[in-house]
Structure formats: structure tokens, C-alpha cells
């Protein structure tokens, strides 16, 4: 080993316990840094505990088992005020995940469309897309949320004069209510049919890939796959007795009952998150596509590839490489921004944790839970996107 430290020859045993030794210095610096971090953390934790003790405040997570006693407006799982704080917070976590997941999907779709529209040769479409991006990207999200919520509250009529754009779909300031198929055995058979169809489509796709590799012959796998899914679903539905009954909304007492209701709070939050985030996604998609040189498109069409194939086989695989890392940040932003729900009354995690903090007085525990949950969600999204990024990244040899 001919490694040189500090200008002196340094064999494995030629260590000197001296300030002039680079190894010693770096170890000392690292110990000092670690000590500073530990001391800092200890200072805050100790201070907090001491202050809590001084104020005679209870600490710990014991409150999680107590009855929450407060109502929650919307929940995907069963919840009554007789349930525990733990379950109330679980409702919040699920609501946060729900709105974030739908928001991420819709923002990706809308953002991709807008991003491509900005590159359109049609002047009007390109300009409209630009106006959209500049307007939504340059106003605060909180303001946009209030705007969407106010549209619901001020512009839509009260429940008793609900608008009915299509029969049985009611639009009022209580939200959107639409009919759903009434519970019947046939529907579960149809679901099973769809699952079988999806499995079939996957087998079909892998068979067609192997056949193309072996013989060069192509197979219309997209259409055949769709046909398998729809066909199996229809067969399941027919086997289940072809149920057609609908659970229709009807005005009863104060409100509609029957059907499914989507609350104004949820719609306003989703609209706000999707429209805001889509503007950023659009710019990222546009940048990703622009990063691929025109020569590639020309080369691909010289080889005789069709437009759709050029996009799918040449442009997108390379563009995704550029798109994925920044879009990951946008997904994280959307998830974290969903906490603005508190302003318009959608019961997300922050909203419910705030209520719990207030009813129990245990602010530190509540904030810790909020932080832990967001950290977990964000890190999970990051891990997934990093895995996907490695998959689409160019393999360099």
C-alpha cells in the first residue's frame, strides 16, 4: 500500500497519536460532531420532559386506548364516537392515504396530458396549457382549496333544490350523490370474472412477448387482453343472475339517503391537490420529452416505426429516466399538502390528530404521531419510486 497521509509514508502500524495525523483529526472531528448531535437531542428531550413534569402534564400514549367521543364526518372504515383515539387516528391515516393515492393518479394523468398539450403544434391548445400551468403554479395551494370549497358552498344549491345533471345524480352544497348498484351476489361473481380476466391477460401478454422474440410475429395483446377482462367480467355477471337493481339516492328528511355521497370537503381537496400538482407534473413531463433529441424521432421514423411506437419504444423510455426523480418529489409534495385539508374540514390525519391533541392535551405525542405517519408514507413513496427509477434507468455497460 502506497497511500500517503499528510505527506508522510503511512504504513499500517505507523500511526501516531498526534494532532498532525490526519486519521486522528478526522476521528476527533467525528466524535465531536456526534457528541454535539447527541447533546442537542438530549437537551431538547430533557427540557421537554422537565417542563412537562413541572406543569404536571401527563405524557405517554395511554390516551390511545381511551374513548375518542368526538364524531368524524367521513370514514372508509366503521367509526363511532364510542371508538378509541387509536381508531380515530387510523381513520385519519386512511383518509390521508385515500385522497393522496387518488390525487397522485389523477395528477399524473392530467399533468401528462397538459405537458404534452404544451408541446402541441396547435397554437390554441399549447397556449391554453401554458395559461393553466402558469395560473395554478403561481397561486398558493391554500387559496385554491378555499376557492374550490367556496364554489361548492356558494354556487351549488342546498340539498332540497339539488341539481340533477343526469337522472339520479344529485349535485348540491352537500356534495355529489350518485346511484350505485344495489348489493347483490351477482356483483361478486363479476368481480371474480374480472380477476380471472386480468390473470388471463397477463399470461397472454407474456406468451405474445415470447412469441415475438422467437418468430417476430406481433399479436394485438392490448385489445385481446381488454377483451379477456371485459368478457370474463360479463360472463361472471351473467352467471350471477345479471343483477340490475340500483341503490338510488332520494331526498329523505334533511338529506339524501341511498347511493354514494362524495362530500364537498373531499372533492374540494382532491380538485385543489390534483390541479395544483398537475401543473408541476406537466412541466416535468414537457422537460422530459424535450430532453430527447429530435434526431432520435427522425432515426426511429427512418426505421419505419409508427408515431405511437416511437413515443412508446424510443421517447418515453428515455424521457422517464429524466421524469421519475422530480416527479417523485411532486408525489411527496401532494401527500404532504393533503394536510391542508384541515382548513376546509376534510378529516385527514392532521385534522383528527389536532382534535385528539385538543381533547387530550397531549400535543407532543400527537405531533410525534403525525410526523411518524408522514415520514412513513413519504419514505414508502420514495422507496417505491427509487425502485421504479432503477428499473427504467438506462443500463450502462
Amino acid at each position, binding site marked *: 500500500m502506497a497511500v500517503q497521509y499528510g505527506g508522510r509514508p503511512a504504513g499500517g502500524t505507523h500511526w501516531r497519536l498526534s*494532532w498532525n495525523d490526519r486519521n486522528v483529526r478526522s476521528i*476527533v472531528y467525528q466524535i*465531536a460532531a456526534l*457528541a*454535539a448531535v447527541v*447533546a*442537542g437531542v*438530549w*437537551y431538547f428531550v*430533557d*427540557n421537554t420532559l*422537565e*417542563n412537562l413534569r*413541572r*406543569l*404536571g*402534564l*401527563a405524557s405517554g400514549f395511554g390516551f390511545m386506548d381511551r374513548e375518542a*367521543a*368526538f*364524531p*368524524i*364526518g367521513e370514514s372508509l372504515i366503521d367509526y*363511532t*364516537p*364510542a371508538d378509541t383515539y387509536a381508531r380515530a387516528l387510523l381513520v385519519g391515516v386512511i383518509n390521508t392515504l385515500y385522497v393522496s393515492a387518488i390525487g397522485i393518479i389523477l395528477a399524473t394523468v392530467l399533468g401528462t396530458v397538459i405537458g404534452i398539450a404544451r408541446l402541441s403544434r396547435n397554437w390554441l391548445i399549447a397556449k391554453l396549457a401554458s395559461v393553466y400551468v402558469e395560473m395554478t403554479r403561481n397561486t398558493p395551494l391554500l387559496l385554491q382549496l378555499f376557492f374550490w370549497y*367556496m364554489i*361548492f*358552498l*356558494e354556487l351549488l344549491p*342546498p*340539498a332540497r333544490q339539488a341539481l340533477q345533471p343526469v337522472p339520479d345524480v344529485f349535485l348540491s*352544497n*352537500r356534495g355529489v350523490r350518485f346511484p350505485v348498484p344495489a348489493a347483490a351476489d351477482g356483483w361478486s361473481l363479476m368481480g371474480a370474472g374480472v380477476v380471472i380476466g386480468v390473470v388471463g391477460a397477463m399470461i397472454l401478454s407474456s406468451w405474445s412477448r415470447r412469441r415475438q422474440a422467437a418468430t417476430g410475429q406481433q399479436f394485438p395483446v392490448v385489445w385481446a387482453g381488454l377483451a379477456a377482462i371485459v368478457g370474463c367480467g360479463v360472463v361472471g355477471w351473467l352467471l350471477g343472475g345479471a343483477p340490475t337493481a340500483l341503490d338510488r339516492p332520494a331526498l*329523505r*328528511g*334533511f*338529506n339524501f*339517503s341511498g347511493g354514494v355521497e362524495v362530500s*364537498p*370537503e373531499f372533492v374540494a381537496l382532491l380538485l385543489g391537490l390534483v390541479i395544483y400538482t398537475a401543473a408541476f407534473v406537466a412541466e416535468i413531463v414537457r422537460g422530459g420529452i424535450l430532453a430527447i433529441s429530435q434526431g432520435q424521432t427522425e432515426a426511429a421514423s427512418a426505421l419505419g416505426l409508427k408515431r405511437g411506437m416511437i413515443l412508446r419504444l424510443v421517447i418515453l423510455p428515455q424521457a422517464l429516466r429524466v421524469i421519475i426523480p422530480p416527479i417523485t418529489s411532486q408525489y411527496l409534495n401532494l401527500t404532504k399538502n393533503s394536510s391542508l385539508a*384541515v*382548513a*376546509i*374540514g376534510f*378529516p385527514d390525519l392532521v*385534522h383528527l390528530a*389536532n*382534535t385528539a*391533541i*385538543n*381533547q*387530550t*392535551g*397531549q*400535543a407532543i405525542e400527537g405531533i410525534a404521531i403525525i410526523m411518524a405517519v408522514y415520514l412513513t408514507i413519504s419514505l414508502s413513496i420514495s422507496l417505491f419510486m427509487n425502485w421504479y427509477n432503477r428499473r427504467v434507468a438506462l443500463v450502462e455497460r
Partner: protein
Amino acid sequence: MNKLSVLAAGAALAVAAAAPAQAGKTLDAVKQRGQLICGVSQGTAGFSRPNNQGAWEGLDVDFCRAVAVAILGDASKVRYVSTTAAQRFPALQSGEVDMLSRTTTATLTRDTVNGFNFAPVTFYDGQGFMVPKKLGVKSAKELNGATVCVSPGTTTELNLADYFRAQKMQFKPVVIEKVDEIRSAYFSGRCDVYTTDASGLASLRAVDAPNPEDHVILPEIISKEPLAPTVRHGDEEFADIVRWSVYATIEAEELGISSKNLEQMLKSEDPAIKRFVGVTPGNGKALGVDEKWAYNIIKQVGNYGEIFERNVGKGTPLKLERGLNDLWTRGGLQYAQPFR
């Protein structure tokens, strides 16, 4: 090795500095600052709301002023911090405010788990419901299936759930922290019902409703809401001063002392009055404040009856009756402990 020892000394210093910083006692902090920091609402007419000139007014505000008079001798030495229902307790616990005077209900868990002490009740209230008149609802028992607007982190929110559970009725809550937002949700028809303390409903209907005639307050009162100024555990002297400042306004009304006749009362021969206004010294010293403290409170803020009538009484848009808030001698619950 010189630098090493410097580093070591630095680390030792950091550890030494990590000893918990003992916050100054509330009373000392108020005196040193020359100002009382009082947590109030975001704007409840009659209780705490800025007037046209931007000065805070209301029944709750007057008790902040009374405490400032007792400690600092001047009712204007108060800084008001507007808090939402959800922010108020963290604000008090963390020391951001010295006390709350913010339509806060005294309850067992707030007294114990949250680490607060409650001063005497300044307003006996109860939770009610308000509905638009056009719904034709006459009683809270007809509210099955209704959508209800409510502020989060309040006893109101819990009572609401309890009441509907007890009556075996269903409801859908709409819960928004910011008062303006939840009110506009109700007025736009997002909710069928708005619920809060009856006094708050009266204030909302009289002052905030576009047309007060369009809304009715249902007869049922579903809870006890004794509203009281709140201080945090840890400074008993300060808590004592807050407590006796409230009692002073009630005691004055019992003794027939008001801001109008205060000067004559200085010449009174009644020993109770002489003790109260500080002609006979003792009370001030015992509390650790000026002997003229009660005199000054009545002079600058008024007695309980004056405070009530000025802010929420018949001559105000709220038009509230004294009811439970009348003196015990007249069938109410307001009762001062003896000043001796």
C-alpha cells in the same frame, strides 16, 4: 493537543447548558413585561372581538383587563392573542399566553390532564342548536339525520356526539377549525344545524347572520358550560390574583359598588366596603398586589353587572337575560367568596 482540549471544553459547555431552562413564574413575567398576555377568541361578538377602532371588546376581554388592573394597575396593559379553539390549550401550556379568557368550559380533564386551573365562572352557559327557520324544526329531537357544523377540539363537539348517541339519532358533522369558515359553511347551507354555547349562538344570530330573522335557536340546552378564565398549573400566586379579580367584580355588585358610585363608597362606614375598596388595608398585601386593586378594577372595568350589561345585556345586539348569571341573591349562580 491544545485544540483537542478546546473541543472538549466546548462539549462540556454544551452539556452544562443542557440543564433545563426554568421558565420564570407567570406573575414575575407579567410584572417584568409590564403587560398581560391574554388568549381570546377569533371574534365572538359580546365576548371578545375587536371593535371598529381595532380595540378588543367583550365580557371575556373585560376579565383580562381586570387582571391587568390588579397586577399592573392599568386596564390597557394587555396584549390580546387571538386563538382558535384548537390552538388555545397549546398556547397556554407553552406559555405563549399568560391566561385564557376565551369562552372556555371548565372540565375535570382540562383541570387535571391538561394541567390547568380555572378561575371562578364568568359566564354560566349551555350548549344549544341553531337552525334556519325555513327547515321548520321546533325541537332538537327532530334533528335525526341532520348535518351539523361544529368547531373542533371543543366540549361542544363531544356533547354533540353524546347527545345524538343518547337520543339514538344519526348526524353528520362538518368540522372546520377556523371560525369564519365554519360559520360561512352554516350560512351557505352546507349544514342544517350550527351548534355551540347558547351565548355564542345568540351572538352569531344577532351579529353575524345576514338576516337574524331567518334563524331560530332551539329550546333544548344539552349541556352545562361554565365558562371560566384559565391559567396553567405552576404559579399559584398568579392563579389567586386571577381568581380574586373575578370575585372582585361579583363582590362589588353584591355590595352595591359600581364604577358610578365608587367615590362615595370610599367614605362608607360599612367594614366590608372599607376592606373591599382598600380603605382598610390587608387584602392587597395578602394577594401581593396594590391595596387599591379592587377599587381600581371597579373604577376601570366595572362590577359584574356592568360588565354583563355592557357586553351581552339587554342594550346590546345579543339581548341576553341575566338568568343563571344573576347574583345568588336574585336567583342566579354568581356568588363571590368572602373578602376577608
